[in-house]
């Protein structure tokens, strides 16, 4: 078990973070070059004011028509996205591990709050699953990979919750927790989860074209 633990918490963590950050850089740079070649007008139309205006309207619940039409989904996705970022980054256990390795640390959440946020993420994933299975249009558009992706997103949170509460097998589950999070980080740039960083560019461009060129709103 120690050999696996060492491997998963050491070399594999490096690989995951390199793929994550390297993948983000690669995607951004390659897309920027492609746009320059094929759609140079993207650069001409781009307007920071209109981009941010549109991004803000699409980020907050009820600030766009689309969001007002789906109130429950809007609230769930908003909470989900906040928790999925804040809980891991401000979790004591993660910060102390980073502090032990690199001697840097920052503010952390009380464990109880992180625990609730984890439950909210798991609850949201169940909601997304049920939505995919039951809502005809979404069901029609879903393929097997969508379900796998959803499971990959949920896995680090389920295993983290499991390990924290020390349910049976928590040593093995701690290893699975690190492993599943590493898989998730590594695939984010190369799957549709890359909306994590591409959202700001797609939305920003839409906002620019609609706002600065067509003088219309896009929310």
């Amino acid at each position, binding site marked *: 078990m120690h050999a696996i633990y*060492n491997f998963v918490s050491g070399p594999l963590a490096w690989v995951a973070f390199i793929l994550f950050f390297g993948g983000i850089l690669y995607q951004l740079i390659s897309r920027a070059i492609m746009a320059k070649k094929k759609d140079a007008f993207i650069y001409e139309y781009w307007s920071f004011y209109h981009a941010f205006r549109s991004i803000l309207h699409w980020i907050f619940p009820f600030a766009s028509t689309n969001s007002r039409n789906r109130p429950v989904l809007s609230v769930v996705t908003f909470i989900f996205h906040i928790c999925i970022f804040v809980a891991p980054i401000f979790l004591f*256990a993660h910060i102390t591990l980073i*502090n032990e390795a690199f001697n840097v640390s920052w503010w952390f959440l009380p464990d109880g709050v992180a625990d609730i946020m984890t439950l909210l993420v798991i609850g949201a994933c169940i909601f997304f699953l049920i939505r995919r299975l039951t809502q005809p249009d979404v069901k029609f558009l879903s393929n097997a990979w969508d379900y796998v992706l959803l499971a990959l997103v949920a896995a680090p949170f389920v295993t983290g919750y499991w390990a924290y509460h020390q349910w049976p097998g928590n040593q093995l589950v701690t290893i699975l927790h690190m492993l599943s999070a590493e898989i998730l980080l590594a695939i984010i740039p190369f799957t549709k989860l890359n909306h994590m960083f591409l959202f700001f560019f797609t939305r920003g461009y839409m906002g620019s074209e609609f706002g600065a060129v067509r003088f219309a709103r896009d929310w």
Partner: protein
Amino acid sequence: MRKNILFIGVLLGVLSLAAFSAYSQEDIEFVEDSAFTDNMRPLPAFKHDEHNEMAGLECNECHHVYDDDGNLVEDESSEDQECSECHGAEGDEYPMELVRRYHLNCRGCHLSEKAGPVACGECHAKAP
């Protein structure tokens, strides 16, 4: 009469010695540094004497003393001090540095020796 007083005196002495040594031999079962006032996790189990015998550790592996140049002083021990007295637990800020030292000391050795607990829940185990 004098004999009786002597006897009682000796008896009292033996009793208090027994009581004292029973007290001082009270085995350490957990690490409970006084710098952590509001523990977030269950106390880590640590059967001091048993652990150190089993792992064959010198006292100053943990209760170390360093000279001014930062070199370990071989045959001195700081067993009369808590780790927190030397490792960053001043002021009102959370003693992150102290947690770091404990983890590097305990977990660090377990990782490199490939023996002993390494996952959070193995050391900070809830009482069954």
